[in-house]
């Protein structure tokens, strides 16, 4: 894992001191809320429905044990005892006091964490694969490139006041776990015919009120030229992106109005004029970063652990957990474990301090001290010996974190919605819980298989509803909460935007409607088809008829 050296640490100290000074001026009345707002936003501090909310960056979704313990401590000391993991690999504390914020930032800085660029019209935290460095699927470690981007984008002077916020994702596996195609820039690592590394560059993806799937503007960018190319993309966007209307300011609007081809041409033209020697990272620095991600401590083990096989045979609960939450590791005898934050009665993405501390302990004992955060609001322990799986499972059960539902119907993404968010039209969390409640029967959930449900409380789409296999959007109809369902979205390598099923439903009707959709799928599916595949084959009509049958 990348470790901060004295330079990185001094940078965070400088940042934290600067903010303490600014908060002091605000509390003393020297700054008005208007003047203070951009400053606090630059440090991840939002004013929410009930209190301040602090958004802490988790660089490309990677945490160590000390960091998770510190997050637990902050949740207990300064919040109501829990934190909320978001869909962009951040963690949010929803009940923070302004006067505590500088102390919290100091406490974070001590473990190399910060809130820099977690809001504002700048380059935000880079999304990466939570299985980086652990999966055999990847052709390179995407964290190397994510760290290069982290450094390059941190307080980038030219790109700190973009037309709108800007998010980059880096993926290196055929299976995309970063939602790269709905980022402003999606970078997919590819291997060239000559064995060299490159990126497929996709631009202009995004959700919100005008969702777009990113389009490829470069099939193969030599990997060592990444930073100069990003500079070219950002410069074209900074100059030409719209600034007259915040709803039209994302790069997706620029790309769609110019056309991807013309946008790509402008980027090439700009890129050709950039001095590569100044803009691209030297090979020595790339080598330094790469070395930091070489995983020490992996033992040479037999491919199969007999004790684990026996335990799985004897314990059906462990066997179910293994089927749904455990995947292959690149090293023989190891496994990757997904930890679900979607227990049926939980708020999706919430973890309390006890749970965070338990995760830190378990990661220390069983996962080489490495913890990852996924954009689907779950955690990952990436390096677990198969022979440790039974003990890890027991440890997770003890703190309510062994829910065996990864990618299943109850593994729902939901934004905070009306329970916390000032912009919401409708509640999201109770709807997620009502669906989870309806699919409590774990055998049935497994029978249904992969089904991604995503819920947003308004059109800002924080819950990614556009790319849910089933998307649920809260809308306001004459002061009442309604929900609009969409089908057929995907944020993965087969990305697509969902289509509207029919008229909005009220809160009580959503879970039964999902049930009916699932019944249609079970009746129609062929072979190994997922819900999404069946929908793509048979289309909207049978689903629509089943949900609105009473309306005829």
């Amino acid at each position: 894992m990348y470790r901060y050296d004295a330079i990185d640490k001094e940078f965070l100290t400088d940042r934290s001191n600067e903010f303490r000074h600014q908060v002091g001026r605000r509390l003393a009345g020297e700054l008005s809320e208007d003047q203070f707002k951009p400053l606090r936003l630059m440090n991840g501090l939002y004013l929410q429905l009930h209190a301040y909310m602090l958004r802490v960056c988790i660089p490309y979704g990677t945490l160590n044990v000390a960091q998770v313990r510190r997050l637990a401590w902050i949740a207990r000391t300064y919040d109501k005892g829990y934190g909320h993991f978001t869909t962009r690999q951040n963690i949010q504390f929803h009940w923070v006091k302004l006067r505590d914020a500088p102390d919290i930032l100091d406490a974070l800085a001590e473990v190399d964490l910060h809130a820099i660029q977690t809001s504002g019209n700048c380059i935000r935290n880079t999304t990466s694969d939570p299985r980086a460095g652990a999966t055999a699927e990847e052709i390179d470690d995407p964290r190397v490139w994510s760290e290069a981007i982290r450094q390059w984008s941190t307080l980038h002077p030219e790109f700190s006041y973009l037309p709108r916020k800007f998010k980059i994702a880096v993926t290196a596996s055929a299976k995309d776990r970063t939602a790269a195609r709905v980022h402003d820039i999606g970078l997919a690592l590819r291997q060239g015919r000559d064995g060299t590394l490159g990126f497929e560059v996709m631009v202009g993806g995004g959700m919100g009120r005008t969702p777009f799937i990113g389009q490829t503007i470069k099939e193969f960018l030599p990997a060592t030229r990444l930073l100069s190319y990003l500079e070219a993309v950002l410069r074209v966007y900074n100059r030409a992106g719209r600034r007259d209307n915040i709803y039209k300011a994302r790069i997706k609007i620029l790309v769609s109005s110019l056309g991807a081809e013309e946008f790509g041409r402008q980027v090439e033209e700009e890129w050709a004029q950039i001095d590569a020697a100044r803009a691209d990272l030297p090979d020595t620095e790339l080598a330094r970063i790469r070395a930091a991600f070489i995983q020490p401590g992996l033992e040479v083990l037999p491919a199969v652990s007999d004790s684990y096989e026996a335990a799985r045979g004897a314990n059906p609960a462990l066997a179910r957990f293994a089927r749904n939450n455990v995947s292959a590791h690149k090293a023989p005898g190891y496994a990757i474990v997904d930890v679900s934050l979607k227990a049926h009665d939980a708020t999706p993405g919430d973890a309390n301090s006890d749970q965070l501390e338990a995760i830190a302990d378990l990661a220390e004992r069983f996962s080489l001290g490495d913890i990852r955060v996924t954009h689907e609001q779950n955690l990952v322990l990436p390096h677990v010996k198969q022979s440790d799986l039974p003990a890890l499972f027991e440890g997770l059960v003890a703190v309510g974190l062994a829910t065996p539902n990864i990618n299943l119907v109850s593994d729902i993404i939901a934004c905070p919605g009306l329970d916390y968010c000032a912009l919401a039209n409708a509640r999201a969390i109770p709807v997620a819980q009502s669906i989870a409640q309806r699919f409590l029967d774990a055998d049935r959930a497994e029978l249904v298989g992969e089904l991604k449900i995503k819920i947003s409380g308004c059109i800002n789409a924080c819950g990614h509803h556009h790319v849910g296999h089933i998307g649920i959007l809260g809308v306001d109809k004459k002061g009442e909460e309604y929900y609009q369902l969409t089908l057929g979205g995907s944020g993965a390598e087969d990305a697509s935007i969902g289509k509207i099923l029919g008229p909005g439903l009220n809160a009580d009707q959503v879970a039964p409607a999902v049930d009916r959709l699932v019944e249609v799928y079970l009746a129609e599916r062929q072979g190994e088809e997922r819900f999404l595949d069946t929908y793509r084959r048979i289309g909207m009509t049978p689903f629509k008829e089943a949900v609105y049958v009473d309306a005829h």
Partner: protein
Amino acid sequence: MSTLIKYTANGATEIENSFVHVVDGEPVPQGADIIVSLGRIKAEGEALLASGVRVGVQIEPAEAVEDLAELLPRLALVAVAFPKFRDGRAYTSATLLRQRLGFNGEVRAVGDVLREQAYVMTRCGIDAFVPADGSSAAEWSRAAGHFRHVYQTAADGRTPAYAEPGRR
């Protein structure tokens, strides 16, 4: 008269502003150093530059700084306009003036110029400021120099973290 802060390697100082902004369509005052629009310099450039006073040009966010390329050696300064502090296009204009067009004269920030942006402005090669928030040179200097390290190359030529001798 508004404060003008000049930033050099030795820090920030307040200096007298000798330049007058000439509004398009209005006559040029006799004998004064002037700042005119891009449109005006394109239309009347030769006459203005021949008049013996120092001439600067103000670039608005939507204008292409490249249009000044040929005139640059004869300009005393380029003013980059920030109609709102959130409008970040001038950062690109300033960067290109320094890195691509090789301009060594003064690049001056005018408009909604706030101390909170001192750091990024300086890094983009802006070296003169007309602050809109009443900042003194000392306050400006403190804000601009707050960070001991920088992570990327920029127009100010500071050494990025990766090239520092202490990088581990």
